[in-house]
């Protein structure tokens, strides 16, 4: 069959239209923000490090210069504590932000966050069970993240099963409601377990508030493959999220298999989020505030929003971690408290500025 709209074979005289994607200006701004955050993250802390020394130490590591100006202790603090923690913060922040943007697109809900389908409540239950019932030696490093990951994944699987069983696969509201129900149920069980084991209350509570561990490279090695995999899947399908933003019916009329695409994106975002939550606890707000701030400032489609969310979310959490580490030094604030305390007012500021600018 010939194409219906017989378009002129000659190339148009005008420059062909294109989607904006990531505007160069915003790419540079987001990249600069991340780099500055990483530098601040590496230099800030109880032990002050000189930027030049850090650079020379890095060059020495790469074998470009003969010796590092830093002493053995400083070297250890820099490479075994600070750099891995900064990298971990960047991975967790980037993952939560891009997962939040994905959920908002997939569920047509601007208030969707990565915890929408119960991953937080499930991970909370898994972590509480691990802290309360596992032998101390096991619970600490090895099994707590695993239990949290399993709990989060299980909660989302239950949510999905309930959402599907209603037989209205295209109705996203069903999934959101199922997520609310599952989250309440898992939270109830978690609270019960917590009450039964009041000796571990503080440990559970501090996990729930979110904290990045200073455990060297081991958590980075565990988390990185999930973040890389999940982010790659989401970025490959970033154009489909723009199609889904037209609503399920219109996306289907454009030839998209809405149910399958949504499942794929939700699985990717959830696996990444569950892995991030497993190592860092529940860090609130990043998944909502970062994508919305980008959208308000750059006004971009999902094609631009998703990569920008990852980069800005990474920088945002590294900065939040700097504040968490230094504000009450040598004590640490829970990073979830920092993200909510600074993130909320900042978001209000952005919202007010943009509204003012438009009216």
């Amino acid at each position, binding site marked *: 069959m010939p194409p219906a*709209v017989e378009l002129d074979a000659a190339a148009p005289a005008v420059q062909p239209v294109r989607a904006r994607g990531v505007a160069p200006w915003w790419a540079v701004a987001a990249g600069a923000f991340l780099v500055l955050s990483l530098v601040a993250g590496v230099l800030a802390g109880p032990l002050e490090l000189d930027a030049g020394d850090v650079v020379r130490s890095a060059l020495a590591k790469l074998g470009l210069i003969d010796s590092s100006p830093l002493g053995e202790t400083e070297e250890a603090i820099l490479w075994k504590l600070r750099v891995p923690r900064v990298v971990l913060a960047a991975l967790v922040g980037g993952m939560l932000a891009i997962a939040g943007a994905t959920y908002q697109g997939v569920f047509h809900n601007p208030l969707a966050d990565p915890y929408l389908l119960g991953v937080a409540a499930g991970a909370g239950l898994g972590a509480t069970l691990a802290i309360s019932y596992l032998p101390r030696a096991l619970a600490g490093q090895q099994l707590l993240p695993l239990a949290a990951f399993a709990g989060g994944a299980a909660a989302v699987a239950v949510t999905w099963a309930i959402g599907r069983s209603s037989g209205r696969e295209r109705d996203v509201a069903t999934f959101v409601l199922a997520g609310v129900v599952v989250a309440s149920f898992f939270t109830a069980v978690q609270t019960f377990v917590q009450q039964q084991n009041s000796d571990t209350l503080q440990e559970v509570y501090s996990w729930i508030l979110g904290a990045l561990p200073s455990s060297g490279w081991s958590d980075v090695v565990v988390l990185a493959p999930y973040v890389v995999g999940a982010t790659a899947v989401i970025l490959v399908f970033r154009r489909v999220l723009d199609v889904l933003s037209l609503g399920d019916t219109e996306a289907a009329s454009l030839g998209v298999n809405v149910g399958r695409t949504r499942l794929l994106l939700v699985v990717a975002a959830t696996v990444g989020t569950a892995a991030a939550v497993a190592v860092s606890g529940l860090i609130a707000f990043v998944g909502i505030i970062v994508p919305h701030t980008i959208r308000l400032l750059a006004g971009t489609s999902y094609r631009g929003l998703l990569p920008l969310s990852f980069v800005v979310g990474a920088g945002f959490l590294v900065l939040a971690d700097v504040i968490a580490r230094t504000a009450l030094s040598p004590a640490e604030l829970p990073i979830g408290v920092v993200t909510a305390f600074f993130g909320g007012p900042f978001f209000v500021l952005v919202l007010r500025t943009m509204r003012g600018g438009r009216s």
Partner: protein
Amino acid sequence: MTAISTRSLSVTLGRRLVVRDVDLDVPSGQWVGLIGPNGAGKTTLLRAVAGLVPYDGSVTLHGVPAHELSRRDRARELAVVPQEPVTPPWLTVSEYVLLGRTPHLGPLGRESGEDRDAATQVLERLDLLGQRERTLGTLSGGERQRVVVARALVQEASIVLLDEPTAALDIGHQQQALELLDTLRGESALTLVAAMHDLTLAAQYAERMILLDEGCVVADGAPEEVLTEISIARHYDAQIRVVRVDDRVAVVPSRHRPQP
């Protein structure tokens, strides 16, 4: 050639039979006006033909049973302009119109130069090139309607289903939109099926009208055959007069019942 053919097409929504046993043949290039009172099943019939709701019976597009077509292939045959299209305010006109190329893209969803050229030509044709960098949130109702039509045309489907394409427009923009569709139909041999509430306007453009009531086809033919005072009084429960304007029938509301 027959563009759309349905046999015993029925749709049940919840427990209600919304479309009943519709047999329809629409030749290529025809403009069909689909009319009927609220709740008659117009939108549902269009959605069934587009494969957007489950149905019983069969739908054939250009001789190919629709259930044998993949979603992508169906989207290349048939485009839909919905009644209330979702227009995300942050998308630019270019980005939105390029989304119409979705059924033509490869697995990774990269838009090629060919896709961008196609979008550019449609925007040029609809006089929208000047608006290409504007975001949808800043467009007027008439501009937005043209942009939605542009997205459907970029799909390069030969069948276009329109659900109340002029509902949000003033009378001038209604005429411009329908004139444009009629011109495009002539240029590109499009088959148009448009569900419309404005019977007079529908009669001025459609070559054939189909009247639906309670999910059944109750009248099918040229506008002057379908739009009769008795038929409209019965199916719309309306008091109207049918008059002739420029050799076409026009439906005018009246406060007096027509004499039997």
